[in-house]
């Protein structure tokens, strides 16, 4: 455990000694801030119209602000995660520092978990910074706490899957650009896979929609924690990291 932390700590700091963390976080917050502002003003306008024309109750804060906000956040993470993970192993291999890790008394599993933890911590930092939006909502209105908590949880799981994919691709190449591009492509693939499920047959449709990363997020967005979704996300992350282990181990044999 101490070894995992040693590696995670170094990698987390490395994000902040290079411009990566600042650019990713700044970009993320700029887009999120714009989205939040836009969602909020649109929601207010709609509510005002509902009241004016006595059309009954408008959408709740959860439906009108929280869900679209987190939906957008998940898309943004799809774009940003490749930048977060691409360096993790590719750079170590290019700089030959992987040899330091591999000749230290730490296991490959500890190295991989350390890397995963460092990227998860960066995502966590980004998520903590977005707490300002729900806090604003609580100060000015009365949103439901539940869906906000589960949305964060779902986002962590979903982003964890992207990170796991990103680490896998980063372990396959010395070239960060290649790693990043493959991560983005694969993330998009698992995102859009559910589209095909509608036209596929009954069995394949189920399989494809089960494999869809975004499909498993829907429950979280509505404030529901379903064990199926949790198990899916955890297995997805686990398989990604396991394959990374196989890839890195195979390099030793060549």
């Amino acid at each position, binding site marked *: 455990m101490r070894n995992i932390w040693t590696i995670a700590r170094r990698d987390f700091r490395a994000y902040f000694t290079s411009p990566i963390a600042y650019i990713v976080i700044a970009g993320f917050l700029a887009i999120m801030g714009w989205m939040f502002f836009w969602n909020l003003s649109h929601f207010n306008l709609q509510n005002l119209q509902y009241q004016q024309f006595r059309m009954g109750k408008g959408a709740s804060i959860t439906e009108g602000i929280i869900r679209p906000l987190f939906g957008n956040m998940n898309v943004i993470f799809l774009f940003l995660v490749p930048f977060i993970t691409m360096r993790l192993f590719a750079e170590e291999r290019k700089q*030959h*520092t992987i*040899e*330091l*890790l*591999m*000749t230290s*008394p730490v296991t490959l599993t500890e190295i991989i978990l350390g890397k995963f933890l460092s990227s998860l911590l960066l995502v966590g930092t980004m998520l903590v910074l977005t707490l300002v939006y729900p806090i604003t909502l609580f100060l000015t209105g009365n949103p439901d706490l539940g869906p906000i908590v589960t949305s964060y949880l779902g986002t962590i799981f979903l982003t964890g899957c992207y990170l796991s994919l990103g680490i896998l691709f980063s372990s396959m190449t010395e070239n960060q650009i290649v790693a990043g591009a493959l991560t983005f492509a694969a993330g998009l693939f698992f995102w859009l896979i559910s589209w095909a499920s509608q036209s596929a047959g009954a069995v394949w449709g189920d399989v494809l929609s089960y494999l869809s990363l975004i499909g498993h997020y829907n429950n979280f967005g509505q404030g529901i924690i379903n064990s199926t979704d949790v198990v899916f996300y955890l297995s997805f992350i686990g398989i990604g990291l396991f394959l990374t282990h196989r890839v890195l181990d195979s390099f030793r*044999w*060549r």
Partner: protein
Amino acid sequence: MIQVSHLTKMYGPRTAVQDLSFEVKSGEIVGFLGPNGAGKSTTMKVLTGLMPATSGTANVAGFDVFEKPLEVKRNVGYLPENPPVYSEMQVEDYLDFAARLHQIPSAATKAAVAGAIEKTGLGDVRKRLIGNLSKGYRQRVGLAQALLHNPKVLILDEPTVGLDPKQIIEIRQLIKSLGGEHTVILSSHILPEVTATCERIIVINRGKIVAEDTIERLTTRLKKGLIYSMTVRNPQPAAIDSLRRIPGIKAITAEGARVGIEIAPGAEEIRDRVVETAVKAGLGVLEFSAERVSLEDVFLQLTTIENETTTTGA
């Protein structure tokens, strides 16, 4: 401290190291000598547990490299060909990280880092970013990393590459001082390096050991013949031919005014006859001197002999 037996490593169909067996005693400094691509780095990578061998066994500090890799890694300090340093880190932070990786207790980390900085002369650059350091300093940071956890065995792959002459001398002295307490294996394709630091050398070529001995014995054993050089005033071919007839002469080469003379081993006593004959033949001897057989020649001899036998064998 290190036992290697019948070690073979293949990269796909290419054999990098073939049936290598050797032993290194505790406290010894051994030099791995060989041309580029001879299999030095590969052997070292197997010894550090970085790479598994295709067949054969390697035992380091009492642990089998394949069975107990973590134990081996705990007892080995390794400086790879390219120093494994993070360019975006400060020297001190990097060494602190390496100390943590080697599970040095946190209370002892500071002392270990300070000790390694002291030994490798990194005091002036401890707060600098490694990426901004010269190749020589980066090499030293790599060396400091290898020394940090005070390992029983040090494996140094070309430790003085990229250093300036003054630094080379310093590092050699450092390595020499490590002997006795640590067991050191270092590789090099530069001979003076090995002569200056090692007690014993293992010459490897094309993945095989071609010689293994102390430096003195290796040079004497491999002196195939004695080579002398003579400068003459009138290099007439007929006169040079008369030298060839002297019994005990292995070869005569004439190149302008310079005549190279190779005398068979044990026939040194014919030297005066050579000069006598040369004078009588009217060559006009200006200079007669011995050409010392250096380790460089020995090395070239060893590695070229090996090449010839492998090409004729194939």
